[in-house]
């Protein structure tokens, strides 16, 4: 009965949800976001969660105003645990900008770094997919940590909400304002502070564009430990704040490993100097990790020290075809064993992904004509000995072909060919954008089960939309994308919460590398226990008591709106 009621409520709601959130029509004043769905195991989590919230609230709330908020929070909590969706409302705790605020900012930053120009604000208010749109009236461009500190101290005392922004290339609506938050863009803080050629440790400001760091390091004979499609505009501060993954993770690990230190400014303007350049430092809690991947909700990262690996001269890339998904898996196992230390990327895409790229991107040709194969795998090796590495890779590929793991393949003979293979894999998101509407999901799943989801969703959606799967097989990271001629609530209702529930059931993560942002803030329970989220909320409360930093994001609204 309970189940039926929940389903009924969902149906009622979905008919109400006329305005398409992906077309961002309703983002100006209010946000609709579908709430958590309930799976069986999930209901239990929620039950556990409720008393914890109560306890926390009763401890921290004293004033009557807060009491009503507390009730609100609980109501919202109740609602979001049902099959209902809720509206995100601008928090009444935040002030609105006044002329005095503007003149204060002008005084500390100078006229030209206080931007109120419509055109520039439109860009800063909108994410690159055009999916999320805020209505901020103010963009600040500090050029030093001191200025960031002054801004935050002031905003905190005035209770002005702030959204930290880097290159604004995020995919989950984390880098744009939801309402009228003040945008703090650290793009002017783009100096390289130091580089140690012996240890390979780079210290730089947060606004350095990833590609500029790559070319700076190239001249020194080093590379960045991360590489991603958005490198031409994304900034290192944003990369660190979102714990960006990308193409080299299988080799160099996540930023939790390669970031050695950072400097961050807390909501009250306090500067935390944790800019160490040590590989080993076991003195107390390693707080820098709190700022890696917290999406600017705990502080603004202003400087980073990062360990960079030396640039190795021999890079080989192979583009391979596999008959079925189990061959891709076995190939990964074999590659780890036989290519070991030189394996630097193991990416996969399915037939549908390649078709999209061939149809929508100019100048791309099928590397394995004439027929199409079910799966394609891109393997990259990076090493120090050209002939040795190539021999090793060739031997591995030929062996894999003999035992039937690979049905066909090509090996790049020069850098140009290698880039054209990479272009196919990296071009999938662009091709999807050109193909029409796209629903993007970035999931971590056990490698064995990863593709089952794609197949099951394909059956569920039938002919109404194209389901494609690609991603970083080496890291167990699936990019599940649904491409449709236009955004359609009926399609969305078939995908969500199905995809999240499926992921949760298989102990996966609903956000492997994109983060939660606004899109998935309320979905956190699919991957994290109530207790864990509760600790997160307490940390948020401790570091940002007024909740001014990147509000409405990362943490579910039922726990964050009480602060």
């Amino acid at each position, binding site marked *: 009965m309970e189940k039926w009621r929940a389903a009924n409520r969902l149906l009622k709601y979905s008919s109400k949800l006329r305005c398409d959130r992906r077309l961002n029509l309703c983002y100006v004043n209010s946000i609709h976001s579908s709430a958590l769905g309930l799976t069986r195991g999930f209901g239990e989590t929620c039950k556990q969660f409720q008393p914890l919230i109560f306890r926390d609230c009763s401890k921290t709330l004293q004033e009557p105003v807060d009491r009503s908020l507390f009730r609100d929070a609980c109501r919202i909590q109740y609602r979001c645990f049902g099959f209902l969706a809720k509206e995100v409302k601008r928090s009444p705790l935040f002030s609105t900008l006044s002329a005095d605020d503007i003149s204060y900012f002008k005084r500390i930053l100078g006229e030209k770094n206080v931007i109120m120009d419509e055109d520039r604000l439109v860009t800063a208010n909108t994410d690159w997919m055009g999916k999320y749109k805020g209505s901020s009236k103010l963009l600040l461009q500090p050029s030093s940590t001191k200025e960031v500190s002054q801004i935050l101290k002031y905003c905190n005392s005035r209770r002005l909400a702030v959204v930290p922004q880097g290159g604004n290339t995020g995919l989950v609506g984390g880098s744009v304002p939801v309402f009228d938050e003040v945008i703090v863009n650290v793009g002017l803080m783009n100096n390289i502070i130091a580089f140690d050629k012996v240890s390979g440790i780079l210290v730089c400001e947060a606004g350095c564009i990833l590609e500029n760091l790559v070319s700076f390091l*190239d001249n020194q004979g080093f590379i960045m430990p991360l590489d991603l499609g958005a490198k031409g505009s994304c900034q290192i501060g944003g990369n660190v704040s979102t714990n960006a993954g990308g193409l080299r993770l299988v080799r160099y690990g996540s930023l939790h490993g390669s970031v050695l230190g950072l400097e961050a400014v807390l909501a009250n303007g306090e500067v935390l100097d944790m800019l160490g350049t040590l590989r080993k430092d076991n003195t107390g809690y390693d707080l820098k990790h709190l700022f890696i991947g917290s999406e600017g909700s705990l502080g603004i990262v202003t400087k980073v020290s990062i360990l960079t690996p030396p640039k190795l001269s021999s*890079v080989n890339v192979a583009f391979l075809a596999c008959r079925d998904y189990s061959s891709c898996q076995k190939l990964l196992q074999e590659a780890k064993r036989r290519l070991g230390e030189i394996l630097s990327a193991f990416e996969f895409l399915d037939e549908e992904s390649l078709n999209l790229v061939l149809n929508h991107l100019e100048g791309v040709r099928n590397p394995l004509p004439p027929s199409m194969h079910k799966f394609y795998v891109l393997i990259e090796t990076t090493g120090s000995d*050209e002939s040795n590495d190539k021999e090793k890779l060739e031997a591995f*590929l030929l062996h894999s072909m003999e035992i039937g793991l690979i049905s066909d*393949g090509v*090996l790049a003979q020069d*850098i*140009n060919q290698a880039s054209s293979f990479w272009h196919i894999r990296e071009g999938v998101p662009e091709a999807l954008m050109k193909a029409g509407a796209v629903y993007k999901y970035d999931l971590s799943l056990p490698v064995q089960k990863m593709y089952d989801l794609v197949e099951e969703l394909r059956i569920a959606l039938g002919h109404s939309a194209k389901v494609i799967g690609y991603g970083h097989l080496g890291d167990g990271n699936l990019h599940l994308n649904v491409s449709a001629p236009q955004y359609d609530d009926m399609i969305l209702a078939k995908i969500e919460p199905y995809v999240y529930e499926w992921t949760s059931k298989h102990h996966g993560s609903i956000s492997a590398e994109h983060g939660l942002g606004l899109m998935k803030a309320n979905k956190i329970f699919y991957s994290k226990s109530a207790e864990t989220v509760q600790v997160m909320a307490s940390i948020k409360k401790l570091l940002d008591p007024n909740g001014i930093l990147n509000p409405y994001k990362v943490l579910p609204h039922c726990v964050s709106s009480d602060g």
Partner: protein
Amino acid sequence: MKIMVPIKRVIDYAVKIRVKPDKTGVETSNVKMSMNPFCEIALEEALRIKESGLATEVVAVSMGPTQCVDTLRTGLAMGAERGIYVEAKGDLFPLSVAKILKKLIEIEKPGLLILGKQAIDDDCNQTGQMVAGLLGWPQGTFASKVLLDKEKQVATVEREVDGGLETLCLDLPAVITTDLRLNQPRYATLPNIMKAKSKVIKKFTLLDLNVEIKPDLEIVEVREPPKRKAGVIVSSVDELIDKLRNEAHVI
């Protein structure tokens, strides 16, 4: 008919070139080397001619240090039947290359020699013309289209000239050099890489061929192009006009 295709090992097209500190040349140690892109196009054209039944065999040739054998393997993996490697130390300039090729042609007797129009490292654009001269063969340079007539033993070559196309008819045997738009070279597939491992690469020394290499050119100095100066933002039209007139001297 047999087609011979000389291929050159050069610094990869995508590598950023660095001049050696002593200015004697460019840095080649620990730098990715690949087949010259124009040579790839030449080889692709030869393979297409063979696949259309107009030729029976494609022989790839390379000369220089021993690593040239790797480049030859790439050629074999693309589909050439055999390789010939001529060991030579030191700089090889176009005239020397042409003389070596002439000797090889006398041994192999191909009906067609297809080369890249130039190598991307020295940009000489001379070898094809010189071999044709030494052999007394007709030549069609900068080919953007090649058609063979087996019966008449003629090759029709379309070449890109200033402002249009020129069509030439060459009696075989002939020399053809390839331009960028002729075709798009294929990738080396795994089955072909496997086959290439058992293909034969015959090695010659200069002594075997009885060719004497005289360095007829000397590289005096290699320099990087001057760095572009940073631009300036002018504050008024008057200042712009002033700069155009007095600094750039263009108005």
